[in-house]
């Protein structure tokens, strides 16, 4: 077409309308939906948790700025992905961890996992999860030193609910029928420290059976942002409604995991089939954070529905296996990282063009 050099209008390709969020819009929406759980984590674990979050986010942004600026000569901070990675990474670290660990993890996430494969959209591994696995195996000691929430009883310090369960299985406790009893032992109201926060927690905790209520609120030892399954789930509702995260992966993940935990979770405690405590396992550890925010990362999950469902099923099954029979109490990060490897394969399933379907 005759587009002269002086022409005011250049040939833009069709379509000329666009709608829905931009990439940056999606990233910042996820960040916003994550914020309540993070603020809650800082309230529960104190200033130290805030420092960990600030270091992991700061290091992530700096690494992104340095690497993509130096090697690609592009400014990519505005797409929001580095901020999200830093935040997710901080959420999945224990509050008492030495500050060099979030810094090293962020550097590894951005420089190695993401940018070395070509930056946003090219990495095969979720940066935050991959970096968590990296620091977990590099500095296992500090990564498994837990701090009880400020308002919780002293009894609990030093062990997460999943850690307690694992410990109980290696040194059998007579008469123990399920993991929640271990937690309840440390959650007597008299054991709570006095203060406005513990008052609030007690009042909220009464809405659900003892133990489960505290776990849903995150008032147990654990990582900074993974504690409150309730706040994480509330945040994700917006993301589901706006279709920013695909429902298939969290649904298949939580569904298959819950089912397995119910069917076989009782076996190690000698309770028999279909006696497992699914609610305990769904609320414990990083499952909510992993299933809702990390497994559903669009870059590292399959494109089409059948693949997404299988991906979620695989995550759920692996998490259950790793938690029940693995050497570590927690299995979410490894399970998702393992399933990330199968994404190219899963993308081959389903989704034939309509015309080919007609030929069948």
């Amino acid at each position: 077409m005759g587009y002269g050099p002086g022409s005011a209008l250049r040939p833009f390709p069709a379509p000329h309308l666009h709608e829905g969020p931009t990439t940056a819009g999606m990233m910042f929406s996820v960040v916003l939906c994550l914020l309540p759980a993070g603020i809650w984590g800082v309230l529960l674990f104190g200033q130290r948790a805030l420092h960990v979050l600030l270091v992991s986010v700061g290091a992530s942004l700096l690494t992104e700025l340095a690497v993509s600026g130096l090697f690609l000569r592009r400014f990519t901070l505005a797409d929001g992905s580095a901020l999200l990675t830093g935040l997710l990474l901080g959420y999945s670290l224990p509050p008492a961890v030495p500050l060099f660990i979030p810094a090293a993890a962020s550097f590894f996430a951005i420089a190695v996992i993401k940018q070395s494969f070509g930056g946003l959209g090219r990495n095969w591994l979720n940066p935050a999860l991959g970096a968590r696995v990296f620091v977990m195996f590099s500095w296992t000691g500090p990564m498994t030193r837990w701090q009880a929430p400020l308002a919780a009883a002293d009894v609990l310090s030093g062990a997460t609910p999943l850690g307690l369960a694992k410990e109980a299985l290696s040194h059998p406790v007579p008469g123990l029928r399920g993991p929640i009893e271990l937690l309840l032992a440390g959650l007597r109201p008299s054991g709570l420290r006095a203060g406005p926060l513990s008052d609030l927690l007690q009042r909220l905790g009464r809405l659900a059976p003892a133990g489960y209520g505290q776990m849903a609120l995150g008032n147990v030892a654990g990582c900074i942002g993974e504690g409150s399954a309730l706040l994480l789930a509330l945040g994700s509702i917006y993301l589901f409604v706006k279709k920013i995260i695909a429902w298939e992966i969290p649904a298949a993940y939580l569904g298959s995991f819950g089912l397995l935990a119910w069917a076989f979770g009782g076996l190690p405690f000698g309770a028999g089939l279909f006696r497992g405590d699914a609610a305990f396992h769904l609320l414990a550890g990083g499952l909510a954070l992993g299933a809702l925010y990390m497994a559903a990362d669009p870059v590292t999950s399959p494109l089409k529905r059948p693949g997404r469902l299988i991906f979620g099923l695989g995550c759920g099954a692996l998490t259950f296996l790793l938690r029940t029979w693995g050497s570590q109490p927690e299995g979410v990060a490894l399970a998702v990282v393992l399933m990330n490897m199968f994404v190219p394969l899963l993308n081959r399933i389903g989704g034939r063009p309509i015309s080919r379907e007609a030929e069948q």
Partner: protein
Amino acid sequence: MRQARTFPRGGIVPPDRTALSAGIPIRNACVPAEVVIPVGRQPGQCLVRPGDTVSEGMAVGRAGGPDSISVHASIPGRVREVGERILADGSRSLAVVIDLQGEFTVSARARPPVEWETLSVPELRERIREHGVADLSAAQAGAGCLVVNGVEREPYISAGQRLMIEHAPELITGLQILRRILEPAEVVFGVEEGRCEALESLGRAAEAAALDCRIEPLQPRYPQGAERPLLEALLGRSRLRSKTAGTAVTDLASLYSIYEAVVLDKPLLERIVTVTGLAVRRPANLKVRLGTRVGNLFEECGGFSEPPARLLAGGPMMGSCQSGLEAPVTRELEGLVALSRSEIGRAAETPCIGCGRCASACPWGLMPGEIYKALEHRLFAEAEAAGLTECTECGCCAYVCPARIPLVAGMRQGKSRAPEG
């Protein structure tokens, strides 16, 4: 009312901006001082030479070679030039330029309507062909189903809706003529639900003419105005697959032209064009002489209320971007859209994050993002295996893409480079 139907997968629901122009009755545009009539490039297609005097409605060319349908002079006058012109879609074509002179012998003459029932089927076919509406010689009688596309092909456009509101009896007559020629077992008329005025006036006209046709409300989704999604919505996919069900599809503009050609004995000289968009001061539906410069139509709508971010021939989803205002109105042009900066939702392009929105929006079940990536790596065979050639460039994928990747432009480029077959 029945549950409104729609096609089974993909598609988008763009903002309904037909309201800008849908309430405004069709009015005649000013007769232009010159028209540009494209006649195609092959020898034998052009029937006049510079200096010739042409009367209104005289055949000046044959669009597809010597035996095909005629192209007519939309105004009387003198042929000033026969030369190459760039059309609105960016293609080049030989065109006849006519300066206005003399009298309007077709439009000014009041003629009694032809009793079309008395004409034989070959006579009907010949009139429709000679008056430049359509070549029905390939269409066999006895089609299983005649489908009328009463859905606008593009968002924003309201030309078809206005035709249904103001000229429903004429449309129904056109449909009766076509029905006599094709003898279909069934006639289905698809109209978007919510177009109450149009549905009502169509229903009344069909009843008055005692025409046995099913008026089917459809959900407002794009690209339902395209042939395949329309048929999927109206007939269902299982019926489409069976090879026995021969279907013929026609649209509102064709029905109206058939009416004019047969009943009024008038060639195709005008069409209805919607001029709209937030950057147009007074959006309108104009009855325009073919060959009118598009700039004239924008002027007639009060010009621009702000500098337009895009000037489009066609609609906002598949229309082509214009650099100037010189292109002539052709028979396919249904709308002219001037989009304001606020409408286009432009953002910086980022890498693909694999969200899969393009795949869920594609009405053909393709994975546009994957095809685009294959093309980026020049893997044409892989792109074709993934369905590149099935893409109709409807634009749904790029419309929803959060990374604002120019998927359609990539597909188009890929198709032109990919080996045939």
